């Protein structure tokens, strides 16, 4: 069923009796061409592009809980393509272009809002670094704009630009960045994939891989064996656990990241702001809540909840640039488990086992990557070749010394 304004009016006049479930609840078939493990944003996007762009008809997505219950439904919804390094920037710019046409592609309102993102600059050294980054973005076809303190005052009059400790000396703006309704991304991709024949199988946990003579033949699940010519894994924070079932050890640690939302307020914050002297970022949701976050808690965790020191640290960052936030009440806070890779960049690659493919290591920046990640993973699964924008996301880059380390932090995953 196509969604349209006409449809909304028609349904309103006929008692909303014509709406149908947005996707089916199929019984798993015995065999598929491609099985995607993980019904998060990346797995569902992969299925959508496999069916729609690469003509794959027999595809299933297997999700242990319900789709959208993982990080895709827990993130702070920021999209941007403001990366520095060659291995990353073309990929994230490709993603931003896919976001710009996502709703037409999916026939689904994902509330893509290009309200702009502004990274604040607090020192001369930081201005140099952000100018360099802006130039790298422009060279890769993205938009970037260095704003002066006066420009920033006009847009965000409440910011304290003359603070003695952290004066605001300007900012790197990407006006095409913004936010997207995260749940709607999962639902929109699921609905579209389903309408192209993909089976979305929920409440079905993958508990093992059937590997014979170095070839993956399918997955063992809580609902029985499901055969597949190719298996693509996209389970984000659970990557190490899942791949351990194939005796693989990954260059990754799982860490908890917390996020926060305030009570609903009148519009105060038109775009996304990041604080450059600590780690704090904030945007305002369409319901009015200020959505914000900061650093990881910093220790390995699968708990989906964090501890108070990280809360304190985030709130200190908030009060440093945004003292008015201290008057708002906190409505909710939660955590998600991040697949923190050793260089802060993802992996989209084949494994050493034939027919087994991997997508992960998204750290806390994988939401913005959802469309390109799905597209590139579908490309790899369908054609056995990496997508041109994802050729650097290889497993062997750590061994070969080809890290993509945006922050220059080295192999300390809790610092990326």
């Amino acid at each position: 069923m196509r969604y349209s304004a006409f449809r909304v009016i028609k349904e309103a006049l006929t008692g909303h009796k014509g709406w149908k479930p947005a996707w089916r609840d199929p019984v798993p078939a015995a065999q598929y061409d491609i099985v995607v493990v993980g019904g998060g944003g990346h797995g569902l996007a992969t299925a959508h592009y496999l069916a729609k762009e690469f003509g794959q008809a027999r595809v299933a997505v297997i999700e242990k809980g319900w789709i959208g219950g993982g990080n895709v439904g827990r993130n702070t919804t920021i999209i941007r393509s403001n990366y520095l390094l060659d291995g990353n920037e073309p990929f994230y710019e490709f993603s931003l272009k896919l976001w710009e046409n996502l709703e037409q592609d999916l026939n689904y309102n994902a509330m893509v809002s290009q309200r702009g993102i502004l990274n604040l600059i607090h020192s001369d050294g930081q201005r140099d670094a952000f100018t360099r980054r802006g130039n790298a973005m422009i060279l890769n076809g993205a938009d970037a704009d260095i704003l002066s303190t006066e420009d920033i005052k006009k847009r965000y009059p409440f910011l304290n630009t003359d603070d003695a400790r952290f004066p605001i000396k300007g900012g790197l703006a990407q006006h095409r960045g913004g936010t997207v309704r995260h749940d709607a991304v999962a639902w929109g991709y699921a609905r579209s994939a389903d309408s192209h024949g993909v089976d979305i199988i929920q409440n079905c946990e993958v508990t093992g891989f059937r590997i014979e003579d170095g070839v993956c033949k399918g997955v063992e699940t809580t609902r029985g064996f499901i055969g597949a010519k190719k298996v693509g894994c996209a389970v984000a924070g659970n990557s190490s656990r899942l791949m351990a079932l194939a005796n693989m050890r990954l260059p990754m640690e799982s860490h908890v990241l917390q996020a926060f939302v305030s009570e609903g307020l009148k519009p105060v914050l038109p775009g996304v702001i990041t604080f450059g002297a600590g780690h704090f970022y904030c945007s305002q949701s369409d319901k009015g809540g200020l959505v914000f976050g900061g650093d990881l808690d910093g220790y390995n965790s699968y708990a989906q909840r964090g501890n108070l020191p990280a809360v304190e640290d985030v709130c200190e960052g908030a009060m440093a640039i945004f003292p008015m936030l201290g008057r708002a009440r906190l409505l909710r806070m939660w955590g998600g488990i991040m697949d923190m890779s050793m260089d802060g960049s993802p992996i989209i690659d084949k494994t050493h086992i034939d027919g087994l493919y991997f997508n992960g290591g998204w750290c806390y920046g994988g939401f913005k990557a959802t469309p390109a990640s799905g597209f590139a993973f579908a490309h790899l699964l369908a054609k056995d070749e990496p997508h041109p924008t994802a050729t650097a996301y290889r497993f062997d880059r750590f061994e070969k010394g080809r890290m993509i380390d945006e922050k220059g932090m080295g192999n300390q995953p809790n610092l990326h």
Partner: protein
Amino acid sequence: MIINHPLLGPRDSAEFTYMGDARLMDRPDPDAPDAAAAFYDYAYLRDNPAGWHRELWFHEAGDRSWLVVTRNTVTHEISAVELASDVARAQGRT
């Protein structure tokens, strides 16, 4: 989280810096023939288990000792805290 320091008693985990899997104490032999592969494994690959995990915590804002903490990554429960120096000595290191 509260870490029960063997010398100082219960301390807030915020006083510590987390340094990852305690296996990092066992640095490979740089002169071994397979040193390159062993260091790749040491520097980059992790078990990253869901459940009990032995890990290094450095008491940066305290007595600057290194601890080996056995902690459950699913519940955050801590079952054992040892001085890393004791652990190393028990392995025969000086």
